[in-house]
């Protein structure tokens, strides 16, 4: 199949492209190929030509950049000022872009501390399905004017518009961090500890469950307070904990950022709450997986037929998003479509230019 790939270098060129082509698929770094591989008849808008940081004043905790900017570049710049994107977008080293991270709606393990991508996006500029350049939100950390279009774009999968610019709230990265790995005799005991931690005063930067029964915790803060906090944490858990320290600690989390390492097959994101875990664990034996953010987020690598996973998720009442793998539709499991979704989509893309999964129409 022949696919036309355009590489706009300005919002105006994105507008032109949207107006001139019947079906459009925006693509950032292509780190989530299930989302960014074109179907028949789609023109790919390669967004990597729209790059560059537009505004960054560390004292404001605000960061504005073009959507095609690579996360790696963003993180390096923020790190120079001791700051970071607290939602911890995955696939940084794989070339993921800001726009792709927002459109895919992906957050990583560190989202535990302050929240996910929706909690940090402040403003967007995008080209809608009629070719209009639209701005929503703003560039200050607090703003309530107009409809919250920035949040709407989170997870929109390029379906509602082509992002050209995004503004984020950023935070200072903790001056020191420490990681503990704690094994429990059973999943039930690991989950009990997870619940106790979530309801406690202990503040964790990451709280992951590695099946079958290991918790991985990351603490952050001022270096002088860390030893006392670590002691308290171990006491609280009442179990021996293996610390991961020094350069290994940072390397460990960098590794986790590349979700591809989870395993072969389709890579799938499943939002959930911790009470779903026991039933899921029974169903997912042998599937490479990891629960992030205190049991709010599951990433798994699925090697079997995707229909089987689709059915499994439906039975559990959960939705899923396929990030890697060849799929007709990346949204699987529970269907969350409703009238609100249909009407808003029709408002922003009346001609269905961004209709990504119905290219055969």
């Amino acid at each position, binding site marked *: 199949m022949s696919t036309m790939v355009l590489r706009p270098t300005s919002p105006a060129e994105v507008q032109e492209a949207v107006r001139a082509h019947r079906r459009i698929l925006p693509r950032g770094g292509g780190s989530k190929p299930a989302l960014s591989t074109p179907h028949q008849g789609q023109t790919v808008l390669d967004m990597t030509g729209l790059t560059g940081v537009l505004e960054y004043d*560390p*004292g*404001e*905790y*605000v960061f504005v950049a073009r959507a095609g900017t690579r996360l790696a570049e963003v993180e390096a710049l923020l790190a120079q000022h001791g700051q970071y994107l607290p939602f911890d977008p995955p696939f940084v080293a794989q070339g993921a872009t800001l726009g792709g991270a927002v459109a895919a*709606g992906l957050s990583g393990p560190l*989202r535990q501390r*302050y929240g*996910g991508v929706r909690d940090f996006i402040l403003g967007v500029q995008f080209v*809608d399905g009629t070719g*209009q*350049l*639209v701005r*929503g939100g*703003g560039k*200050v*950390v*607090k*703003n*309530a*004017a*107009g*409809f*919250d*279009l920035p*949040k*709407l*774009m*989170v*997870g*929109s*999968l390029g379906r*509602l518009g082509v992002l050209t610019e995004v503004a984020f709230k950023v*935070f*200072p990265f903790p*001056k020191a961090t420490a990681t503990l790995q704690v094994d429990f005799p059973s999943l039930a005991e690991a989950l009990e500890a997870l*619940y106790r931690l*979530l*309801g*406690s*005063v202990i*503040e964790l930067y990451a709280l992951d469950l590695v099946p079958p029964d290991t918790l991985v915790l990351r603490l952050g*803060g*001022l270096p002088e*307070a860390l030893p006392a*906090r670590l002691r308290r944490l171990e006491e609280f858990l009442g179990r021996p904990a293996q610390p991961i320290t020094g350069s290994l600690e940072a390397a460990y989390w960098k590794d986790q950022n590349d979700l591809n390492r989870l395993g072969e097959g389709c890579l799938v994101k499943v*939002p*959930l*709450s911790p009470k779903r875990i026991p039933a899921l664990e029974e169903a997912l034996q042998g599937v490479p997986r990891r629960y992030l953010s205190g049991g*709010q987020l599951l990433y798994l690598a699925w090697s079997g037929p995707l229909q089987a996973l689709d059915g499994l998720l439906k039975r559990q009442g959960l*939705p899923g*998003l396929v990030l890697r793998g060849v799929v007709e539709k990346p949204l699987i499991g529970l269907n*969350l479509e*409703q*009238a*609100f*979704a249909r*009407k*808003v989509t029709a408002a*922003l893309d009346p001609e269905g230019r961004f209709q990504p999964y119905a290219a055969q129409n």
Partner: protein
Amino acid sequence: MTPALRELASLFPPTRLLTQPGELAPYASDALTAFRAQPLAVVLPESHAEVVAAVRWCAKHRVPYVARGSGTSLSGGSLPVEGGIVIGLNRMNRLLRLEPKERIAVVEPGFINLQVSLAAAPYGLYYAPDPSSQPVSTIGGNLAFNSGGAHCLKYGMTSNHVLAAKVVLPDGETVELGQESLEGVGPDWLGLFVGSEGLLGIATEITLRLLPKPEAFHTLLAAYDSLEKAGEAVAAVVASGLLPGAMEIMDALAIEAAEAAVQAGYPREARALLIVELEGETPQVEAEARYLDEVIRASGAYEVRIARSAEERMKIWKGRKAAFSAVGRLSPDYIVQDGVVPRSKLGQALAEIERLSERYGLRVANVFHAGDGNLHPLILYNGRVPGELERAEALAGEILRLCVALGGSITGEHGVGMEKRAYMPEMFSSEDLAAMRRIRLALDPLELANRGKMFPGEAPAAHSHGAHPLQRAGVISGG
């Protein structure tokens, strides 16, 4: 009674359908009393099904309506549509579910903000968004206005704490937005609905996220001989890498008002007070407090107090929380503004506001969320003096334009409502507004839900007292 009204009367018992002028009067305005409008009727549903019935009736008879919580909106957000229906949600005030382990609460829209934290307290949990109106405002109103409070920099606004909502769309259809998880897949439809100011539907069931109460607080009060120094202290705290739960500033007039009202024991002669609160795990807060101490000492504060007990902490906050209403003691009337500027522009904004205050001959008290750059200038005027209200409104308008010019926003938390819709074009281009309007019309082609709010040019909701200042200045046209 018209046939349409008779039909409405068949849906609601007489005690919950108000049509007499005396019964309607309390609903004629919200906390922005400068605007008033007479509704045709008020209905007081007690269930989701009754909200659906009311909305369907409105759709069938093309009658505009406004959902109303406690009516504490400061921007005319819950002002009725003249001749329309008010759907009062105060009676839908049940806590439907509290799951402390999962840290969620499911409430009806009329549930009061503060009650959520009270219900969660036995489990060591609380609901983070804390608008100053939290003892009276409803979760439904908070959701519609994406309300904020003193803790937004660190914890975000209401939107960051709402997980799901059951919503009645303007055609009467019911949808579920969001889910119990903090994560989601697909577009964040709930994110769009929160803060939509009642224009996209009515929330009838809301799932909230609860947080564990912090273990320790460190609350500091610093007095300065200039507003500028207090503003610079905020910048210094941020630059040090600390992330306080709250940073609030009050100016001399606000201090005077708060002292007169609640005797918080503030240094009365200060030109500015800065409140900084650290919160979190005890060892961490103790270590952070030492850094904060250094920063504040270097910032030129002439007096620094640390709350040594929960009582001392409450006393410091009491003055701040009472500041708005306390200003009522200094002046018969006042307008609360709600602009946002980048933090680095706070000093410039305050100096400019002072200049404007002199030029207009009206006193302005400043109380604000300094950590977010969210200003709350309180413009004092006397409504009985001819022309003063208009002058106060013109001054308010100049402050909003100043905020936009400095790269900020016309509202941080009080919403656009009726009051600020004329200023939307200052912040957004016509394409931006057209896209928002297309969303609005896709969901509500007849513009029934809270007609006349947020967007300039939509049919006016009420007759106010004369043209808008921007209209008179020729900047905008129409209503």
